[in-house]
């Protein structure tokens, strides 16, 4: 592709390497010029207020001392800084507004967990309306329940997933516990650490029942088995297995998936006493469709020479919006609108976020990009723009949103469709068409000349496709950069070991020099 040069000089810091000194946290925060530094400071104040309010609650303090994973939240601001590196103007605002709300959402999840937790506040009335919901689910089965009657509690999110955003070492202890009990080291560290948390008795215990899913993978099912056993036998929490068909694009599996969805809903009604409400469902279906329209509009902007909402924040926001929310939180509708408005403004003003854009890149594969600031680093160090990622290429189908007798039946199929097409799983399962063929279509739509392939060494789902990617990328003249990692276990692949693979490709294959040589090698091995 032709190099696009940024006609505007970036305010503030030009070389970002100065921010790193080898410690757990950065030497200081980035100087972005007066206007953007002040904005960043006001968002920092906002997060201080969110966390301050959280810690004022004595039950949350009690939870802090009870649960090891809570210590990772000492690094919330560090996590935020990771995802705003080098950003200015609209992209800085978009990243803050989206990511700040994810943080506020996770904070509320922790508050809910502690409220119902038998060891912390033990609010039994609240707890009996809680449904422990697998973090790997789209939570579509909760769309027709009012929150006060049946509330989804995704306890793995604050315990494992979000904690790992703020501290790369957050799950090492739990992986070690799981391995002490004989789980092999080549399992994906995500379900392995969740199993370790359960073995170590470090999950909150609440709820009248639980729903687990077979999304995403075999490792996840292994972990779920251990978790369900403890939930049912020790804590008396019955667990439903919601099983999405693997070949989710095939018509003949949809009836089975819809029937299973009906059974999951009946199970929740039976254990919580809640009643499915169609008005609530269809209102939330409208929210899901609105979210899909706005995400597609963001992708349209990213297909132009001036992408605005990109990187790990884009992916994480979509992840939270579809899975953690799935239409239930009306604030996401407002936020989607606000983010799109900012992105449109950035596009109109032709905002760029690096000195030059050399390559337009799609990020594919099972990604560790919440743990490492890789996507922003690629942009700042090499001028490679991460246009979108595999997790953000989720549902594009509009679901039925008008309450009619036909649509009430269709709704089960729609919820099943959402569940089958859970983020990431919609690509890692369902055959080579969804994983390989559609990638090349996205490259064409987004005008991408490069694909950065995350190769998660413990993920069995993608291993067999390596050769097909290589062969087909070569045929199409797409630069394919393989970057190996081991997700949330930094002992196997450190951050610099991950970056070095990209550096080697850019220097030896592309014969390019970095835009900012001070960040080509970063001393952040010990950083949170």
């Amino acid at each position: 592709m032709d190099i696009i040069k940024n006609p505007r000089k970036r305010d503030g810091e030009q070389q970002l390497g100065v921010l790193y000194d080898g410690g757990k946290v950065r030497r200081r925060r980035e100087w972005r010029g007066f206007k953007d530094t002040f904005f960043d400071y006001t968002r920092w104040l906002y997060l201080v207020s969110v966390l301050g309010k959280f810690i004022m609650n004595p039950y949350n303090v009690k939870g802090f001392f009870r649960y090891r994973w809570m210590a990772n939240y000492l690094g919330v601001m560090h996590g935020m800084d990771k995802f705003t590196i080098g950003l200015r103007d609209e992209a800085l605002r978009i990243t803050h507004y989206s990511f700040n709300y994810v943080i506020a959402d996770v904070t509320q999840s922790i508050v809910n967990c502690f409220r119902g937790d038998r060891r912390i506040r033990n609010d039994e009335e609240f707890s009996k309306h809680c449904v422990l919901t697998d973090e790997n689910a789209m939570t579509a089965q909760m769309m027709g329940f009012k929150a006060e009657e049946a509330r989804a509690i995704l306890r793995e999110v604050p315990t494992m997933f979000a904690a790992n955003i703020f501290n790369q070492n957050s799950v090492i202890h739990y992986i070690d516990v799981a391995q002490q009990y004989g789980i092999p080291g080549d399992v994906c560290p995500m379900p392995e650490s969740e199993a370790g948390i359960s073995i170590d008795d470090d999950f909150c215990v609440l709820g009248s029942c639980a729903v687990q899913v077979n999304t995403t993978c075999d490792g996840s099912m292994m972990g779920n088995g251990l978790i369900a056993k403890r939930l049912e036998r020790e804590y008396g929490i019955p667990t439903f297995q919601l099983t999405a068909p693997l070949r989710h694009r095939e018509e003949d599996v949809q009836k089975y998936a819809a029937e299973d969805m009906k059974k999951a809903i009946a199970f929740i009604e039976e254990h919580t006493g809640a009643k499915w409400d169609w008005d609530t469902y269809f209102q939330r279906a409208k929210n899901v469709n609105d979210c899909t329209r706005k995400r597609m509009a963001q992708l349209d902007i990213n297909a132009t020479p001036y992408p605005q909402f990109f990187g790990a924040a884009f992916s994480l926001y979509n992840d939270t919006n579809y899975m953690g929310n799935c239409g239930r939180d009306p604030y996401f509708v407002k936020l989607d609108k606000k983010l799109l408005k900012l992105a449109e403004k950035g596009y109109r003003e032709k905002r760029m976020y690096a000195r030059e854009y050399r390559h337009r890149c799609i990020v594919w594969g099972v990604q560790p990009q919440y743990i490492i600031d890789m996507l922003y680093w690629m942009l700042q160090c090499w001028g490679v723009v991460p246009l979108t990622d595999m997790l953000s290429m989720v549902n594009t189908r509009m679901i039925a949103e008008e309450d009619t007798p036909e649509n009430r039946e269709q709704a089960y199929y729609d919820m099943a469709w959402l569940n089958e097409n859970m983020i990431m799983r919609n690509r890692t399962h369902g055959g080579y068409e969804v994983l390989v063929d559609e990638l090349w279509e996205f490259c064409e739509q987004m005008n991408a000349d490069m694909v950065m392939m995350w190769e998660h060494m413990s993920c069995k789902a993608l291993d067999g496709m390596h050769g097909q990617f290589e062969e087909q990328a070569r045929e199409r003249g797409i630069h394919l950069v393989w970057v190996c990692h081991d997700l949330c276990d930094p002992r196997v692949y450190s951050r610099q070991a991950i970056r070095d693979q990209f550096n080697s490709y850019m220097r030896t294959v592309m014969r390019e020099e970095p835009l900012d040589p001070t960040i080509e090698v970063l001393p952040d091995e010990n950083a949170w």
Partner: protein
Amino acid sequence: MSKLKKIPLMLLGAGGAFFVVTFTIYFFNLDMKLTSKLEPFFLKHYDTMPRKQYV
């Protein structure tokens, strides 16, 4: 100067002091430097807690 007239000045002074203190903490990353020092104490605490490990 009457007490009433001093109030805006006092508010301005308090706002200015708040800004100087919080901006210094923000810019020099003092919040994260402090919490990173706290982490080892918490980890030590969690290590000493009795656990009911179960598979």
